[in-house]
């Protein structure tokens, strides 16, 4: 009886296990900046979308997100808040790319009947959780991409009616977004790697991006069952010059003004990786560690020094470095607005393929707000000064005040070339209540997304193992010879013809002045009657009259 109950207890305990891993990757960049990437992963073997069974016991997985997933039947959720723009040519490719502002894309389950209603409520709930103005996401800036943003997790069906994508390029990221993000971690910011996250240092940087990615993944190598994965990532690029460093020497304390004390007790693994691939003999790491790891990430084989926090080590890390050549990023994109005046303009998107001999296709997705009316008949795609016809175009025109433009194209990029996509647009006049309180700042257009399978110099690993570092296992790899990359362009800032908001006040002042002065004087002239009046005598005469009255003598005139 006792043995049976203890066995039952053991099975019950082993049933819904959850696991938490944390890691930090530090990579010195060629421009002298330091790229630090935190990743926190919680794996949970449970089913939120089960019928009739509500998940009620949460341990490491945050309850607020779990309830959101089950209430709105979410299959995948990706939300990111970014301040700054990732400079691909100077810094290389990030581990997890994100556009400036806020970006949210969600795959719903196919059992959902009203996707738009769920989307609206989901954005409101998330705006409360993350203290952000996500409630400004509505149908005027949501699109349903037809080929980009395929699910990053497990699944078979990819009907794009269940996908919603929206960006808010104007969204500001500050401490009030970091605070609830830190609260989602099992250890909070009290233990483990999250101790380093001090907002005064994190926001004093060239690039800051925090994201939450939730998706179902394979639980083990055979992939017989699935588990839910919650990844919280924070990417920061510190500029050594603004933080007052003269020499190219950095330490954890100088970057974060905190030191690591211990690993999170709830974490099964807690590691710090330092990228020493570039010129390892010129590096000096203290404390030195004999642990070296190699990982293939973003088409490149890189060597890392590994510090495991579960085994106690000391905290400071110093390194002077002189760096050699950087691997040139193979895919790079830019975007700008051309033209003059406040009536028309032209959007130019330039995509560079820096591979010396291989051509590969890219999928370009553009979502333009309705008040920039695109003329699609002027769309041209040229590479190497010759016309390049895309093999797939999906265009959904905008509906005024209802829907933005969506343009998706699959373009084949010739090797070592520059491809330019241009489209002309006309600026619309908004109703005067639709202007923001500061319309002269301009209106933002969200970043374009370029997705591609870039040929890789190094063979990528296609099977996942548990001990693979987190930063190399985010995107599932299907074939060895290429890796998937997503590049975001700059957002655009466009001026719309703005009315003069002081005009009603000026008109009222002018009209009232004209009425009062002009008409009033005229009315006075017409209706005034004149009477002859004796002028009052001067003071001396009045006094004289007073004395004469007293004397009884006749008065002066």
């Amino acid at each position: 009886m006792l043995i049976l109950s203890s066995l039952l207890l053991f099975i019950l305990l082993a049933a819904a296990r959850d696991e938490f891993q944390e890691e930090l990757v530090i990579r010195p960049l060629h421009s002298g900046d330091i790229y630090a990437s935190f990743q926190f992963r919680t794996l949970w073997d449970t089913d939120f979308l089960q019928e009739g069974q509500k998940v009620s016991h949460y341990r490491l997985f945050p309850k607020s997100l779990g309830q959101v997933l089950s209430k709105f039947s979410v299959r995948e959720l990706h939300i990111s808040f970014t301040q700054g723009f990732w400079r691909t040519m100077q810094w290389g490719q990030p581990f997890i790319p994100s556009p400036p502002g806020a970006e949210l894309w969600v795959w719903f389950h196919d059992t959902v009947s009203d996707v738009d209603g769920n989307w609206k409520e989901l954005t409101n709930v998330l705006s409360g959780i993350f203290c952000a103005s996500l409630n400004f996401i509505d149908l005027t800036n949501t699109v349903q991409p037809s080929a980009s943003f395929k699910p990053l997790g497990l699944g078979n069906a990819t009907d794009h009616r269940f996908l919603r994508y929206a960006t808010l390029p104007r969204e500001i990221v500050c401490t009030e977004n970091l605070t609830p993000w830190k609260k989602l971690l099992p250890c909070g910011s009290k233990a483990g790697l999250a101790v380093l996250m001090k907002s005064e240092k994190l926001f004093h940087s060239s690039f800051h991006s925090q994201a939450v990615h939730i998706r179902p993944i394979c639980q083990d190598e055979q992939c017989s069952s699935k588990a839910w994965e919650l990844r919280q990532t924070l990417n920061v690029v510190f500029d050594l010059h603004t933080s007052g460093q003269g020499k190219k020497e950095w330490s954890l304390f100088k970057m974060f003004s905190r030191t690591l004390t211990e690993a999170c007790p709830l974490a099964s693994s807690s590691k710090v990786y330092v990228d020493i691939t570039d010129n390892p003999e010129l590096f000096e790491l203290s404390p030195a560690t004999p642990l070296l790891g190699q990982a293939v990430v973003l088409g490149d084989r890189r060597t890392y020094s590994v510090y495991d926090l579960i085994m106690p080590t000391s905290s400071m890390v110093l390194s002077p470095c002189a760096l050699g050549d950087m691997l040139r990023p193979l895919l790079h994109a830019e975007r700008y607005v051309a033209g003059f005046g406040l009536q028309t303009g032209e959007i130019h998107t330039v995509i560079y393929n820096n591979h010396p001999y291989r051509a590969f296709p890219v999928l370009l997705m553009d979502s333009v707000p309705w008040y920039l009316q695109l003329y699609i008949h002027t769309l041209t795609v040229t590479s190497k000064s010759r016309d390049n016809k895309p093999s797939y175009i999906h265009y959904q025109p905008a509906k005024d005040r209802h829907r933005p433009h969506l343009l998706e194209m699959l373009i084949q990029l010739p090797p070592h070339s520059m491809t330019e996509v241009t489209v002309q647009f006309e600026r619309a006049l908004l109703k005067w209540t639709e202007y923001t309180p500061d319309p002269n700042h301009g209106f933002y257009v969200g970043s374009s997304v370029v997705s591609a399978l870039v040929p890789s110099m190094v063979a990528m690993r296609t099977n996942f193992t548990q001990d693979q570092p987190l930063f190399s296992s985010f995107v599932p790899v299907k074939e060895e010879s290429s890796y998937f990359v997503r590049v975001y362009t700059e957002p655009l800032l466009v001026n719309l013809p703005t009315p003069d908001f002081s005009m009603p006040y000026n008109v009222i002042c002018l009209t009232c002045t004209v009425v009062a002065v002009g008409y009033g004087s005229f009315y006075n002239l017409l209706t005034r009657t004149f009477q002859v009046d004796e002028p009052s005598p001067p003071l001396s005469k009045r006094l004289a009259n007073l004395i004469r009255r007293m004397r009884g003598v006749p008065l002066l005139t």
Partner: protein
Amino acid sequence: IFWFNYRHVANTLSVYRSVKRLGIPDSHIVLMLADDMACNYRNPKPATVFSHKNMELNVYGDDVEVDYRGYEVTVENFLRVLTGRLPPSTPRSKRLLSDDRSNILIYLTGHGGNGFLKFQDSEEISNMELADAFEQMWQKRRYNELLFIIDTCQGASMYERFYSPNLMALASSQVGEDSLSVSHTFFTCLFQFKVCPQSQCVSTPGHRTDLFQRDPGSVLITDFFGSVRKVEITKDTINLTSPVEPPIKRSGSGDIQIESLTYVDQLPVAEIIHQKPKQKDWHPPDGFILGLWTLILLVFFQTYGIKHLKHIF
């Protein structure tokens, strides 16, 4: 948007900090900041807001939660928060969940004039609107006692029109005076209530307590600025029941079809090129089309008479 409004954000955050320090949790505070100062590009020390130029106290801190920020701070949102008439999908942190036993503190700061307070440089809230909002709150039993503090130019005009009971109001300046919030500090870091005399501040503070039912002298500041949580301490051990576990997925016993789950191809080029066009969801006909058909049918029956109707149905 305007950097010279930094001091208003600093004032609001000082009050927020003091209120939090005296015990009110974030779930009971609705903080609305119209401009982002801390992470603005003009701020030489990002993620900080200081209340004094010697930069000794960062009132922004590391654990601030702003509920309404930027363009969300509008007159409509403010009145909706007060009266509770928010759309159903509004999250809890953006609602004022008060009942008839709650004491509410409202602190407003910014630019104002005789009878109005400016929101976002494009709209104003008038003292009559505010008074009506408070009356709605009273009728819906949304507060027990309410302390209204306003820190703007001519702030005393904002409370002239109040007519609901249990309201106490304080203003930093009278009608006709400007308030320089630099010299008007309600709270120092020792949380003393400092009312500054005419010689130090340029303006005269005003107050209104006639609508208050209790004697104002007996009211504690902490009735509005702080809160006490009830904590029960016990030394007995409590046995928790074992948690409800979801049913165990049996694997291995018998022959069960294990469907291998796969990841989706991120850029399936061949599939994309040969993609069939999406079937458009069928929508019921638009109002215009319906009206057009109704018109056609009406004209038809008018010309040919109603007796033809029975041939149709």
